[in-house]
């Protein structure tokens, strides 16, 4: 063993290097206050290792980025932990960098001959922030997509070359595959390489100039190894413990719904340490963005870079301290304002809530046995009645109809309802209400329509109670069971199989004209076509026909109140009508369906 090591040392001189690295003399002894640089090196090292392993499972393209991150997060062994560590260590790195910078400024450690190392440090800060910015986009979720759009749009206001700069950043005129490949190349290749170079330079210069010691008589001198390394290692452990607490407390890094350029996303916000910039830009009116986004920040960065030079003046150090303090207070105030305003903004909170629901829903759909299609996970949401139904209902139906009293999305309807409430349409409960003399003429049913004084209302309120015989009235519950069965609702399937005889009896009562539905309605070829046809009433097909053209002779005919012909007049596509109908029929994928 010894002979082998001797051989290796002879060829490489590793012992000299090692002892130079380990036996650096620390005047005044090892101290806890010297740990920051080492914790940063550790944090960046963890980012390199976790990042490389994430790379082995990540796919940088518009139909694979979200999908592969989903796979890492929810399918792979330990993937959520790996991604969680990478996510939170990135944030901890930014905090550590700022602490390190503050310490350097407070201690005056930027003074000659350490100016260049101060600039290396600032460069590292800039590169780490660039890593955060590029990394934020890579999961290709709504949050990252829209927040990064803001950043690249700011680049577009660069004087003279803005549009070209933006095109180069995003790889073309629009966000897409090339935005991801370019951001990924920056995030995983170019910026890390630059960071390695700067860290090597930073540590070299640090060793060349030695530690900045305020009181060399604090304690007897000691060596880097093991005294200082022991403290550094404990600090690293504390950093990792912090990150793990964050990962476990939050359940890991968040993954929103897949990026959707066609869906507004009011909840778009940058990572918390960029929130001050986000807030800052609110104060610059149109035409002045370049001042807020570039000129003022550029001036501030320039002054910060001049700190070592300014420090040579008599009052320079005090000025630098004041500069740091005011920057920290300014950033703190802006960050506070940003969160305070968001917290009081109803629209933002609702958008955030909806984003949360969609994030959860798409995860449920991706985990379904049908999986993620080659067209990407966004299609899962686009074709999901539970996601699209409420939106389509709110913008197309809610000007007249309600859904359980609201507009589909949960907000109170903008106008008083003027047509039936469609929650549970087709179900037995819905029909029980229709045949309830107390309820049939309320806005829940016909009360706000042209039919409020019509035949059906009169029939329910007077015909059934007064004109029907007891025998006829005894048939009503069977008629309701049959009519509801015509809808063929998935969620009533088991009940209807069990009650086939009751349904049969209801149908016979109608078709054999024991009860007088057929006086106005057509049922299996029997009756008059005055009101809507009841064969297949409220079935998917019947509802689609109603949406397509309610004035069709088999439906409301000439008596149609105000309902538009959504299909015939090409207001909605077949796909959209299908989504509305399936949503009203509560026909959507449920995670429990597959577990049975």
């Amino acid at each position, binding site marked *: 063993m010894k002979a082998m090591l001797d051989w290796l040392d002879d060829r490489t001189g590793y012992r000299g290097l090692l002892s130079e690295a380990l*036996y650096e003399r620390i005047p005044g002894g090892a101290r806890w206050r010297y740990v920051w640089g080492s914790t940063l090196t550790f944090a960046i090292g963890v980012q390199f290792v976790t990042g490389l392993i994430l790379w082995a499972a990540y796919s940088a393209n518009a139909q694979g980025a979200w999908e592969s991150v989903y796979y890492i997060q929810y399918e792979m*062994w330990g*993937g959520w*932990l*790996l991604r969680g*560590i990478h996510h939170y260590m990135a944030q901890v790195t930014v905090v550590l960098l700022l602490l390190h910078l503050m310490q350097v400024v407070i201690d005056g450690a930027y003074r000659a001959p350490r100016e260049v190392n101060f600039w290396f440090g600032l460069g590292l800060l800039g590169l780490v922030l660039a890593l955060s910015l590029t990394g934020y986009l890579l999961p290709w979720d709504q949050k990252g997509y829209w927040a990064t759009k803001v950043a690249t749009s700011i680049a577009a206001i660069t004087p003279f070359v803005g549009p070209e700069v933006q095109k180069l950043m995003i790889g073309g005129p629009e966000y897409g595959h090339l935005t991801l490949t370019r951001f990924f190349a920056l995030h995983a290749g170019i910026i890390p390489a630059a960071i390695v170079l700067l860290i090597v330079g930073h540590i070299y210069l640090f060793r060349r100039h030695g530690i900045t010691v305020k009181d060399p008589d604090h304690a007897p001198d000691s060596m880097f190894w*093991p005294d200082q390394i*022991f403290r550094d290692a404990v600090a690293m452990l504390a950093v990792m413990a912090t990150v793990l607490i964050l990962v476990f407390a939050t359940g890991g890094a968040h993954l929103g719904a897949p990026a959707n350029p066609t869906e507004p996303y009011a909840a778009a916000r940058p990572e918390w340490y960029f929130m001050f910039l986000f807030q800052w830009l609110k104060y610059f009116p149109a035409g002045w963005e370049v001042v807020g986004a570039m000129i003022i920040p550029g001036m501030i960065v320039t002054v910060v870079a001049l700190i070592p030079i300014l420090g040579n003046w008599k009052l320079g150090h005090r000025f630098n301290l004041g500069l740091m303090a005011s920057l920290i207070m300014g950033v703190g105030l802006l960050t506070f304002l940003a969160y305070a305003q968001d917290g009081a903004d109803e629209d933002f909170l609702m958008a955030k809530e909806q984003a949360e629901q969609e994030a959860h829903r798409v995860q449920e759909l991706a985990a379904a046995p049908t999986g993620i299609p080659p067209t990407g996970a966004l299609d899962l949401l686009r074709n999901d009645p539970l996601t699209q139904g409420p939106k389509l209902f709110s913008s197309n139906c809610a000007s007249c109809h309600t859904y359980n009293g609201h507009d589909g999305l949960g907000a109170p309807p903008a106008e008083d309802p003027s047509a039936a409430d469609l929650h549970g349409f087709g179900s037995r409960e819905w029909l029980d209400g229709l045949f309830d003399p107390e309820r049939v003429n309320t806005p829940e049913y016909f009360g706000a329509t042209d039919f409020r004084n019509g035949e059906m209302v009169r029939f329910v309120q007077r015909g059934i109670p007064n004109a029907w015989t007891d025998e006829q009235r005894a048939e009503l519950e069977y008629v309701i069971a049959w009519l509801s069965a015509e809808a063929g609702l998935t969620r009533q399937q088991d009940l209807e199989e069990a009650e086939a005889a009751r349904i049969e009896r209801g149908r016979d009562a109608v078709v054999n004209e024991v009860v007088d539905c057929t006086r106005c309605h057509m049922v299996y070829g029997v009756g008059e076509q005055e009101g809507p046809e009841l064969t297949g009433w409220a079935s998917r097909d019947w509802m689609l026909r109603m949406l397509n053209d309610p004035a069709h002779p088999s439906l409301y005919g000439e008596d149609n109140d105000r309902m538009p012909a959504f299909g015939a007049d090409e207001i909605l596509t077949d796909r959209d009508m299908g989504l509305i109908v399936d949503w009203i029929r509560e026909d959507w994928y449920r995670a429990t369906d597959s577990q049975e």
Partner: protein
Amino acid sequence: MSDENPKPDGEPRRNFLAAMGAVIAGGLAGVAPALAGVATLLDPLRRTRDDQAMVMVTKLPVLPADGVPRKFTVSTDRVDGWTTYQNTPVGAVYLRRTEENELRCLNVVCPHAGCFVNLAPGATHFACPCHRSRFALDGSIDDPASPSPRAMDELECEIRNDDEVWVRFQNFQPGQEHKVPIV
């Protein structure tokens, strides 16, 4: 540490404790990322091919009656990492009629190193373009100089509903003397 190196100042026992502490704390700090990373890297080991049910490949009349093999694409549902494909091409087979209603089916992949084996011009034999393995039309090794350790991989196939040709599509570990399915 060897003796040539300058010894740190201070009490040896104290230094030993600090060194131990540094190694332990530093080691602990790396445990979580190391475990998560290794677990993620090893994840492919628990992935297996889906059930290898039989799939319909073609109809019987498409196959020449004279026993000349024809190549067919096998399509089935497939989960590729995060993407689920419906009815997508997963491989290819050579089908050959041996009797009026009897078939033989060979996987096109060479058992030597996994290249795609061609049907030689004139349909006299199969020839692998990579390392020159040669197989007879029934899949057996035709030329003793062939580097392939075994005959071409035969797949289970049957005729259903009079004229549907169904195949149990599988791939096998290359380079081994016996057929071992890749699962």
